[in-house]
């Protein structure tokens, strides 16, 4: 399969609600993760790494940070004459708020979809961190003569996880025969990773028919309603992934990347994850610093103790300060003699000297962007 024949479509705003305040003024796609990345870097890099050279990013609200991050797409090698990156904000006449559903979002960019030369479309949300080879999925879609292929994963999940996921029933041939939405199930099951493959012409037909009938949800009105009518196949994905659907899963996914074995499955030298370059200096470890089991991005200056934490670019940790089980996003400044555990700080948070901030690992405290403590 010539991947130049595939259009990538990324939904930057889907699942914005699951991260509460963190997505108050940014899209899900621009949520910071793993020390130097934004969530959208993963689907975007995956597409680029498997030679998809035309990608549209669909966004509706709060997209300033997204635009700033993506720029011309050059960092992902998507600043092209032919194809390349297209950011697709809504037209002015659509009412404010999130799209009512994926179909409405697609309808808003229908003319863009129609204008591309692609034969297939790979749709992806920004809620899954993984390094995915999409080629076998496209090939599977073609070989299995599917109308729609849903990328799924099988595992043991709790009710909270399945409540935010689409659970599918799959038969022996890989065909999906049952679709459950917002249904609390615990135990072994197969869930959708919110990535789909579909032929472009079929997608256009589905969008137009659904809109004509006032239907907006891809999951309910297409996957669920048409499960018998359409041949919807499941592609079971078994590589390392983390799905972000709550503050807790966000927190744990970040901490999981400290494990070098996990990190090596996500950051493959031959399939790098690209992101916006910030030109920070290397990180500096001071005279009395002590750092163990942590991810440290460039531009940090560490004079205190850091354990089991993720420090994004440009974080400063003062003398005598102890940081444990925490995620400090870009340019967080922590003063001297502080004690911090189980905390998530957003960008540009300033924590003065002698502060004690702790919460429990099962419910980490989040400190909003630019706050002073």
């Amino acid at each position, binding site marked *: 399969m010539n991947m130049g024949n595939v259009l990538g479509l990324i939904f930057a705003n889907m699942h914005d609600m699951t991260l509460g305040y963190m997505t108050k003024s940014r899209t899900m796609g621009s949520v910071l993760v*793993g*020390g*130097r990345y934004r969530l959208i870097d993963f689907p975007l890099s995956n597409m680029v790494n498997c030679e998809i050279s035309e990608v549209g990013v669909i966004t509706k609200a709060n997209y300033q940070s997204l635009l700033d991050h993506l720029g011309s797409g*050059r960092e992902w090698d998507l600043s092209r004459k032919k194809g390349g990156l297209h950011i697709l904000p809504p037209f002015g006449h659509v009412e404010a708020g999130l799209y009512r559903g994926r179909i409405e979002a697609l309808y808003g960019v229908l003319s863009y979809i129609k204008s591309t030369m692609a034969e297939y479309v790979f749709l992806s949300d920004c809620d899954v961190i993984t390094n995915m080879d999409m080629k076998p999925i496209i090939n599977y879609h073609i070989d299995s003569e599917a109308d729609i292929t849903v990328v799924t994963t099988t595992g043991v999940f709790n009710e909270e996880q399945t409540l935010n996921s689409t659970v599918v029933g799959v038969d022996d041939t890989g065909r999906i025969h049952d679709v459950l939405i917002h249904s609390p199930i615990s135990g072994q099951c197969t869930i959708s990773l919110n990535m789909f493959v579909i032929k472009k012409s079929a997608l256009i037909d589905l969008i137009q028919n659904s809109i004509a009938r006032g239907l907006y949800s891809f999951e309910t009105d297409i996957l669920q309603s048409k499960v018998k009518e359409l041949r919807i196949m499941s592609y079971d994905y078994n590589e390392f992934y983390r799905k972000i659907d709550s503050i807790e899963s966000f927190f744990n996914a970040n901490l999981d990347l*400290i494990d*070098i074995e996990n*990190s090596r499955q*996500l*950051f493959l030298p031959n399939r*790098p*994850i*690209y992101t916006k*370059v910030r*030109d920070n*200096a*290397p*990180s*500096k*470890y*001071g*005279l*009395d*610093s*002590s*750092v*163990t*089991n*942590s*991810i*440290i*991005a*460039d*531009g940090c*200056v560490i004079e205190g103790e850091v354990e089991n934490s993720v*420090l994004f*670019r440009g974080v400063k940790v003062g003398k005598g300060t102890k940081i444990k089980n925490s995620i400090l996003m870009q340019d967080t400044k922590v003063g001297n003699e502080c004690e911090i555990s189980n905390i998530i700080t957003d960008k540009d948070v300033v924590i003065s000297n002698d502060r004690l901030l702790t919460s429990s690992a099962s419910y980490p405290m989040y400190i909003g962007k630019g706050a002073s403590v």
Partner: protein
Amino acid sequence: MMKKKECVAMLLAGGQGSRLYALTQKVAKPAVTYGAKYRIIDFPLSNCINSGIDTVGVLTQYQPLVLNDYIGNGQPWDLDRLHGGVHILPPYQKASGAEWYSGTANAIYQNLSFIERYDPEYVIILSGDHIYKMDYAKMIAFHREKDAACTIAVVDVEPAEASRFGIMFARDDDEIYDFVEKPKEPKSTLASMGIYVFSFDKLKKYLTENENDKEATKDFGNNIIPALLANNERTFAYRFEGYWKDVGTIDSLWETNMDLINPNIPLDLYDPAWKIYSRNPVMPPHIIGKEAKIQNSMVTEGCYINGTVDFSMISNGVTIEEGAKVTDSILMPGAVIKKDAIVEYAIVGEHSIIESKCHIGARPEDMENRDEWGVAVVGHGLTLSEGTVVAPKQIVSENM
């Protein structure tokens, strides 16, 4: 007719750097790794863009492949421009024949037509061998104010060191009246930094005259500057105050790296107003493992550190396994230090693998004879098998 540029920078990057031995066997000196995530050439290139100079010719000759690849279209330094930008200028064949660059002045002479395309008032000549942050715009303003033919940037050096440099003699108004290249008994401490601002018409005149002189060595220091002085051209010294170091030798490369972790050295890489740009290797943030001990060091992206690191510069993609000890050393990109290996006062080249229980270098205080001490060097792409010992001062350029 192209748009005019006020100033064009010409960066001499053809230096072989032979005194860096194994480290410059396959790369030109300006492409040598410095400060964990930089290459030496990042400093003059970043200075250019930070000073508002967006047209830079990079003159290459010796082992240019790595350097060409590194500079690319100049995008990391914001030097990919519609008009101007960075241009690699290797020697090329002309109707009159082909010749290598036979000296610094000859290299610029052979590229006069490149400079003429931009019709500049001034040309700034830079070298790719120095670590410093400098606002060239201020120097050009000084040159303009003095109505000079040539302005030479100088630093005040220790009298003991003065014999290593080209030494200037200047009057109170900074006009230079004499110049001695590497004097045995220096009577001044104003050392040339190898940075010259020329009014372009004067540069053209003196380069052309120098070319016609069959005896000349075609060098700025030996020929052009003495010729300017002999003709009473207005030649001024621009006094630079700040950190400036030449990284021409193993010892100075090591020292200059160590300066970055010395809090008393005024070279701030964290100043957002004067960033040093570099080509990004596209790697994840580094991971510090459970068994790691790390202090007084700089570490960049793509590293996995689970050993002990103290007073060291750790470049991108380095692995330091559990039980390994790296102190007072420079690890270049992709170096691997296996379990229980010891690296002290050493430079380990790019992608070299130090197998377990190797011992590279030694601390000066552990030496019986201090004269035998020096920084140990392992070249690029080598593998040192288990238990190999590399003595201090030793330079390894083959697998052991």
